[in-house]
């Protein structure tokens, strides 16, 4: 599913009486790098999980490449057939497996031979600059190294979409900036679509060109990130503007 677009049509999600997403319709073009911003609990992660097929919408449709992947209360296309890789907030590394085994098991859903999987895993580790950590357990690695392992596991499947669910929270700024630059380079090289969930204006600015503002489960604003930050009167985007300082120069 290379270079496919993704689209949401009137997607809502309820958890018992609580409304997490409310009638969201949006489209992400192939190769776009989109930042999902919004306050805590506004439904950003739920939206990612819904598109990834980890949850079914209460109503509405999720389309990938024009095909309906999820419909009301129904997951039609299983998660591993969507061409989506995701770096979770807690990274979701399997703690009992070594770095290499994490990447290898992550390739379990691909239709490759064992030798090809091994080759891909080693390539992915090299791509993320951690070939020497292959035999280490995730618990013995630093935060930055664990991020790279999660990224390597995601990239090894050669996804069409890379979802990043606040994966850089807690990292020091130097390592974060380095990782963001590396992801940008990889995205340029492999041309995958990126959807980033973040509270951090610097992450959004570094990685994304498009933006969607979620508020109370609704997509209230969308467009070019530059324009959104310049013109939006929302609290979170105003804070982005202030934190980025001399806005016109800082946002690229």
């Amino acid at each position, binding site marked *: 599913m290379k270079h496919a677009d993704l689209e949401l049509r009137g997607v809502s999600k309820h958890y018992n009486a609580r409304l997490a997403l409310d009638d969201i319709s949006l489209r992400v073009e192939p190769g776009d790098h989109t930042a999902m911003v919004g306050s805590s609990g506004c439904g950003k992660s739920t939206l990612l999980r819904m598109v*990834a097929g980890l949850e079914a919408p209460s109503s509405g449709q999720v389309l990938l490449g024009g095909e309906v992947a999820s419909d009301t209360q129904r997951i039609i296309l299983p998660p591993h057939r969507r061409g989506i*890789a*995701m770096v*979770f*907030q807690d990274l979701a590394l399997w703690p009992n497996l070594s770095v290499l085994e994490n990447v290898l*098991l*992550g390739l*379990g859903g691909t239709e490759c031979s064992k030798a090809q999987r091994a080759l891909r895993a080693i390539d992915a580790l090299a791509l993320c600059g951690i070939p020497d950590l292959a035999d280490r357990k995730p618990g013995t690695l630093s935060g930055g190294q664990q991020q790279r392992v999660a990224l390597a596991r995601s990239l090894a499947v050669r996804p069409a979409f890379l979802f990043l669910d606040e994966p850089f929270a807690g990292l020091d700024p130097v390592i974060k900036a380095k990782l963001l630059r590396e992801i940008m380079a990889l995205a340029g090289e492999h041309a995958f679509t990126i959807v980033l969930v973040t509270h951090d204006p610097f992450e959004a600015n570094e990685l994304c060109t498009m933006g969607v503002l979620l508020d109370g489960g609704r997509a209230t604003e969308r467009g070019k990130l530059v324009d959104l930050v310049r013109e939006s009167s929302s609290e979170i985007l105003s804070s982005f503007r202030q934190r980025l300082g001399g806005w016109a120069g800082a946002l690229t």
Partner: protein
Amino acid sequence: MISSLALERPGRWRAGGIGLLLGLIAAPDVLLLWRALGDGAAGAVGWSFVQAIGRSACIAGIAGLVGLMCGLPLGVGTALYRFRGRALLLALVTLPLLVPSFLWGIGWSSLAAALGVPFLLSGLPACVLVFAAGLVVPLVLLTAYAATAALTGSQIDAARLAGGEREVVWQASRNASAPALLAAALGGVLTLVDPGPGQIFGEQTAASEILTSFAALYDFGLAGRQCAVLAGLVLVGAVPLALLATARFANDLLAKQTRRAVPVTHERLAVLMVGALAMLTTAATILPTLGLLLPMVAGGPELLTWTARDPFQMNHPELVLFGAAAEVGRTAANSFLYAGGAALVAMLLGIGAAVCVGRFPRLRAAWLAATLALFCVPPALPALGIVALATSSPAWADALLRSRLTVCVALGLRLVPVSSVIALRAWASTSPSWAMAAALHGVPLHRYAARVLVPVLRPAVGVGLLLVALLASADIATVLLVHPPGESSLPLAIVTVMANAPEMLVSALCLVYIAGAAAMLGGLWVLSGAAEA
């Protein structure tokens, strides 16, 4: 392909599974209650039983109070402060929980006889001593310890900054007081259903009355009615407690990613803690063990003159020791089979419960409340239920209802509440995103389970198996009521021979059991260290 997401998604199968498991665990209890209520003589339990209930309630109340007063400060102090021998003392405090209470009763009784003061240790005070030192205080202590150890390092630091050690102890005690109170109440309830000390010290408690009705008077109907009455009284107290406890307990089961509090060194408090724990260990373990050793030591000089005696006289110490070894050898296979089988049954059901409960708070609370209430009913109730089922079943069902397998299943069902708490805790320590990542990468459920879940849960399951095995081997009432003829376990053999056999033989058997439990506790300690890591 079944997706690993099935483990994290809601579904009606969860409530169905929990209902099925609870039905299975409660079936023997319901069966006996049904029979007892349908009995024409319903309500006729005898005046002596009513008096026995009063005595049991008195023992439960005093033991609970003593347990709370001693266990709470000791648990909080042990969790907050580091001192020499802390791990060993904690292990020694845990040991009495894993040994049948009647063994400690025999030890105390023997010690009192050797000191020439048997009148000091008899009746109700002796029962209170054994129950308080061997059950309620350790239970409250471990609960307070766990509640305090669950505090974060930042919480402890904040209290210390606000008012020094006094404030730390006060805040930690306040935090632990509610779980400790509930543990004391649970301990009190458990004393109601344990016949051991009552039998040893000649105090007719409700639980010992039930055993007498069944095993001595052979009046199954009376035993069933007495069981039903006691269970009803226990449940009246246990159900509200279970509902109160589970709201908090269900949350405490969840793994939290916080900075742990590290015990600190405090010279004066360390001396106080070591002294208090040593006193508790002396009362709960050392003195009764000494009481069990005394008959052996008394037999020592006789051992030296063995050759000059008639070797076939049964009061010869060496022959008694051979007899003890033979008894241990005769019952070892069954003891291990019952303990291991029960552990396997309980752990399988516990894991099943953890899978059904998942991460859903309401299901978790409902399961814990129901199983905690079931844990409080007398073990004789489900055991007699199984006996009732066996007597009304055709002969071909004997393989299921009158065999060693029956003992394993009965003990396993009784201990599911313990195994399920361990399984739920272990399950909560896994991350839901592991299953999501597996689903996203196309890893099927069976492979995810084999490669990730099973290896991650293995240490906790190992701890659970060992703990349940220890508790199962300490349960006398169930084995006594449902074991097939001639297939007794070691504790049951002790109960059977203690009235007629030489004191030395009984002591030797008790010491073998305590040594075995201590060895298994050591194994548990090592395994739980691995699980913690």
